[in-house]
């Protein structure tokens, strides 16, 4: 039996990886994927806790979170696509119209 804390650590690690990805990567798509990574890391936490607490709630929440993640991904993709079609790039460094 793998202890709960292992799952939590993995989850934390994934979460931080995702966060770093969002903050450091300049490619919009990779940022989006990092965001998804963060959400799924949390899902891992939820499941681990739910297992630990022997509570169905956590599992249900994961379901909901997956939906949210999907909706977020759809919207994110749509935005990135719209940008790509006007700018021909998904590099966020080119998104600087408002930095004056």
């Amino acid at each position, binding site marked *: 039996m793998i202890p709960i804390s292992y799952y939590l650590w993995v989850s934390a690690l994934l979460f931080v990886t995702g966060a770093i990805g969002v903050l450091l990567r300049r490619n919009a798509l990779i940022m989006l994927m990092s965001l998804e990574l963060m959400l799924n890391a949390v899902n891992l936490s939820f499941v681990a806790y739910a297992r630990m607490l022997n509570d169905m709630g956590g599992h249900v929440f994961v*379901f909901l979170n*997956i*939906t949210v993640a*999907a*909706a977020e*991904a*759809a919207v994110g*993709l*749509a935005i990135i*696509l719209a940008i790509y*079609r006007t700018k021909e790039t998904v590099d966020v460094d080119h998104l600087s119209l408002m930095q004056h």
Partner: protein
Amino acid sequence: MLPVVITFILGALVCGLLLGLSRFVGPRRPNAVKSAPFECGMDQLETPQGRIPISFSVIAMLFIVFDIEVAFLFPWAVIFRQLGFVGLIEVLFFLGVLTIGLIYAWKRGALEWD
């Protein structure tokens, strides 16, 4: 869990074996014409990195949404009889909202292909 793991390993082995066979048994004599992209004998005008039709992306997004819908329906379907009438009403509302989304996408032409 174990049977699934074993199946996965076996499946991966088969795939690896097939890949390995073609890699190591077959001859290897590449030349320029052979490794050029196949376009019925014409030279390739541009490499595929430009835009792709937007409809594919739209389909992908629609799929995400509706696939989630289906995923939500699975647990519902399993315990449907326990939920009873209330379960039906709630799922009707859920499906209703998504159906409106579908009608919207439909009317807006997201499902049209030329």
